[in-house]
């Protein structure tokens, strides 16, 4: 004891340095989670008797190999697609049993009867770029999401969240079961009001 002349350096601040590093890494790094657009493919077996769909209930979107859009036989810019799709889906032109009580559209008899009947048909060329295709898909999904958000806020004002937030909470594995059950009921209702009927035709092989 007596021989040790030099006292040790105070290492108390090491902890502070370590915490500093920890916080630095926590702030700067992002934990990567995969995300994307979920889709459901139609089953392989062809329907023997395809149901007859009125032409006015189909919203046709064609993407050519140069990434140009043809919507209902009119050329269109990508940025206008969301609005056009919403206008079509929310039209609610039907009467009687096809009437739509929650639609706020123009009720044009030439456009879709009811969101539950309206179908968006997306056709692309074999040489269309995947990026363009995703951009179009994204806009169409956005149109559905916007309508569902609006419906949710009108019908479930007490939930204090819109459709996208609800779906996110439902998908979160940390959400408790009873909350999930409650959310599922609301989500099913929303999805019934505005079902996502997005048909992807086989790509055009000829041109």
């Amino acid at each position, binding site marked *: 004891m007596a021989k040790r002349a030099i006292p040790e350096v105070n*290492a108390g601040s090491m902890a502070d340095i370590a915490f500093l590093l920890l916080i630095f890494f926590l702030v700067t790094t992002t934990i990567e989670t995969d995300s*994307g657009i979920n889709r*459901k*493919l139609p089953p392989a077996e062809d329907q023997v008797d395809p149901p007859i769909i009125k032409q006015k209930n189909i919203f046709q979107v064609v993407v050519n190999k140069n990434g140009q859009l043809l919507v209902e036989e009119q050329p269109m810019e990508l940025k206008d697609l969301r609005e056009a799709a919403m206008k079509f889906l929310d039209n609610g032109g039907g009467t009687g049993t096809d009437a739509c009580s929650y639609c706020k559209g123009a009720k044009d008899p030439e456009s879709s009867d009811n969101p539950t009947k309206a179908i968006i048909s997306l056709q692309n060329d*074999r040489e269309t770029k995947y*990026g363009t295709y*995703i*951009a179009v*898909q994204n806009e169409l999904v956005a149109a559905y999401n916007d309508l569902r958000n609006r419906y949710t806020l009108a019908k479930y004002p007490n939930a204090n969240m819109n459709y996208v937030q609800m779906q996110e909470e439902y998908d979160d594995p940390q959400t408790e079961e009873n909350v999930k059950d409650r959310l599922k009921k609301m989500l099913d209702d929303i999805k019934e009001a505005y079902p996502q009927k997005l048909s992807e035709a086989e790509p055009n092989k000829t041109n």
Partner: protein
Amino acid sequence: MAKFTKKKKGELPPVSTASLPDIVFMLLFFFMTVTTMKDSELKVINELPYADQVQKLDKKDRIIYIYAGKPHERYRATYGSAAKVQLNDQLRDVKDVGAYILEERAGRRPEIQNVLTTALKVDKETNMGLISDIKQQLRDVNALKINYTTRVGEASQN
């Protein structure tokens, strides 16, 4: 008794390294928890497109990944420059997708075998023809839940 103050001037005390292991361990644990293991090396160019209407993917054990795109430069000599499908860590033809899905599905736990999602990680420059062929294969083996994996951002950047 004890002599606390026996300083010699002008001599540097040794720096204590007692807490160094703690710091190293902390860093180690940090990286262990935060990083995810890369299970297969990418052999295709894989620049994902952007989208903003995205949903998070399910748990990792319920996902089958399919990569597609043009082969990297160093594989061009053997595989050519046309867009290819990468399954696990091999570049394959589109017609092998169905068999791969069945094989992967059989390898998963029985209770999750029918809730599997196929994540398509496709380069944004790929032609849709290839993706349609993949989708056709998926329909044939009844793997209908798919996810177009994207990066989060404005879709107009594509």
